[in-house]
């Protein structure tokens, strides 16, 4: 029996995600035309006009850039305050990116490729930080998920990762506490540093090895330590090693999670600072 999908809900599945749709092309066209228009205005008109007209043009670039930046920032309102807001958040993000790019050109032409006095200089620095961090974030949002998928055994949320990591560490320390003095010393000096080893984390990223592959390599590396221990402690040491490696792998995952959160923190912070200085800049232009 062919079953009708739940009527009122939208049922869809696209085997290849991130495909450009019609709306994307519209935004891309908007961005290309706007940037072309702004560039034409700047390169063919600016400097050819009388000074007062030039000033109007520069101001117009500034106004356009500011309005577009405010529009871009409205993504935050949709994202945090309007969960049932008009349009999917992905559509808003799309708009955000293209509007942000056009605004960058408007501001670039407004500044005339100069930094100027301290307030505009700081404002522009924050502005460019915002743009660069946005582009970075976009790049990361394409690059990090496949990497995470490759190294995760099962997708986990940051809170789960933290608690499982803590459990693993606890397991390792309990084994150390229950063993001989030599055993404890070895765990502390040799395994504990492995939990936060950047080199090892880098291997997960580079080689995209599975945990099972890494663990056998790791145990080979640690064979020397077994010579120091009595035979009954060998298995316990290997288990402690598994814990250490697991913590390391989770640190690798956590780092990616935090990179994904971190760039957005930077993007939002620089946006807030940029708007603060923009207000100051506008105020100073109007009143002085």
């Amino acid at each position, binding site marked *: 029996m062919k079953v009708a999908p739940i009527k009122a*809900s939208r049922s869809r599945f696209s085997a290849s995600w991130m495909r450009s749709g019609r709306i994307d092309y519209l935004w891309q066209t908007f961005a290309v035309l706007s940037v072309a228009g702004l560039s034409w205005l700047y390169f063919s008109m600016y400097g050819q006009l009388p000074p007062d007209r030039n000033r109007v043009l520069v101001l117009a670039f500034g106004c356009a850039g500011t309005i577009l930046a405010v529009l871009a920032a409205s993504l935050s309102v949709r*994202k945090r305050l309007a969960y049932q807001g008009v349009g999917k958040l992905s559509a808003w993000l799309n708009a955000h990116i293209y509007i942000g790019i056009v605004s960058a050109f408007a501001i670039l032409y407004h500044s005339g490729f100069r930094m100027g006095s301290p307030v505009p200089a700081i404002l522009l620095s924050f502005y460019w930080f915002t743009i660069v961090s946005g582009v970075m974030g976009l790049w990361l949002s394409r690059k990090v998920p496949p990497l995470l998928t490759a190294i995760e055994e099962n997708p986990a949320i940051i809170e789960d990762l933290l608690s499982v990591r803590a459990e693993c560490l606890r397991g390792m320390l309990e084994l150390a506490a229950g063993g001989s003095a030599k055993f404890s010393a070895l765990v502390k000096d040799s395994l504990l540093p492995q939990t936060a080893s950047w080199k090892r984390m880098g291997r997960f990223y580079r080689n995209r090895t599975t945990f099972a592959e890494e663990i056998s390599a790791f145990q080979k590396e640690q064979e020397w330590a077994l010579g120091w221990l009595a035979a009954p402690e060998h298995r316990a040491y290997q288990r402690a090693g598994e814990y250490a490696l697991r913590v390391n792998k989770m640190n690798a995952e956590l780092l990616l999670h935090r990179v994904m959160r971190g760039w957005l923190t930077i993007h939002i912070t620089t946006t807030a600072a940029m708007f603060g200085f923009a207000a100051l800049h506008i105020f100073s232009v109007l009143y002085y």
Partner: protein
Amino acid sequence: MNEKTVTSEILSVLGAMELFRGKDRDELTEWLGPAPFEGGAECEPIMIGAGQRIIEQESFGNSFYILIRGTVAVTLMPEGRLLATLTPGNFFGEMTLISGLPRSANVTAVTPCCLIEVPRRAFELWMRKPGAFRDTMDRVYIERGLANHLMMIPELAAIEPQLLRDVVKKARLRIYSKDETIVQEGDDGDSLFLIRDGYVRVVKNMAGGERRTVAYLKDGAYFGESALLRAERRSASVFAMGKVEVIQVMKEDFFALVNRNERIADHLVRIDQKRQEAEQASAGSTTRLGFVGEVVERGLVKATSALVIHLNACTRCGNCVDACAELHDGISRLTRHGMLFEAPSRAPQSAPEPFLVATSCMHCLDPECMIGCPTGAITRDVNGEVVIQDSCIGCGNCARRCPYGNISMADALPQAELEKQRTGTPTIGGYLKFWRTPENEPMMHEIEKNNQKAVVQRIAVKCDLCRDYNYNHGCVHNCPYSAIERTDAETFLDALRSGQ
């Protein structure tokens, strides 16, 4: 219903029905009486105007109807073929309650009608009592089920009703549990099977002793006809993949049907040929069947609305979970754990696409969670979504029954408490702590913090498809990267097959 609403007209109609044979007026009044739990749904008399639709084909429902006065017509879409006209003392709507499948036909009032609407919970209680009601229902279920199936096959539309009725009467309903053998390869073919509900796996012995799954069949499909048509032994084994209901039509009855109607014979031969071709084609490649098999084996194929996350697009930002919690009293109805799948890629060299079927109600075709809710609080809406009503008493039956862990028990806390339990965004300091080791601060407080989040079990919570928000799924609507989608099994498999 109470003594006042149970009129003598109702009692006399019910008294004359086979379903209630042997029941006196007091017993009938008691059967129709108030729901066993406070807030539970109870039997209601309803009045319907001429021309009004009582049941919509392909919708889901939670009621069974007994016609007391008036006439109703049962029609099959899309062409509106009239299947039956029912008069007082007839009943309808039981198929969906028993099988969990959508309604198979439209039912419309021809004249003004009076009906008794029996809610699922009362129906289930009646079905538990041995006696005429259960026996009649079991028989009718087979007869109507088989008749419905046969009528879906266009070639059978023209068949003489009497012949169909004879076949239906002789057919048997067989119920198999997971992994049970329905048909054994090499056995004599003595019957044809029609799948009424569930999935079966067709397995063939290949050269070299390999046992290969050559097909998965689901409700609506039939098997076993090849052995009959070719007078051969069974060419493959068939196993139940969960609870499976099949209708068995014996060889003699099958030939009675085929011999009387050439179109049916042609149709069956064509289907048989197609199946042989498909089996031969699949002998060379196992990948796609392998994936379809995985989808079937892990139950995703029952989904009418599964939540799928494309892992290579998901940045793990958690916005979907936050949005869900925000729209549902602070408790998210989805967690980003679940079944991992790797869908084969269409391009020969490219890597398979990984995705996660998140832990969130799939609104299964035959929701196991709905069986045995004491208050009847878990229901299926006409649109198909499985929802928990306010009459939930928190017994946890549905959560235990759901094979996918998609229902959780949560404390019905006041809003302020719920807010506290939500996972907050970490501080900037939090970002810098990924390397923490036990020396610079054991993470015990994190474990404790996590443990604190475990909530007292009080009410069942699950995804309701954001029905209060016009089905604008909060999770999908709020994913910045288009990484999450709700899909039914058919769309999902079709998309993967066509590599869209």
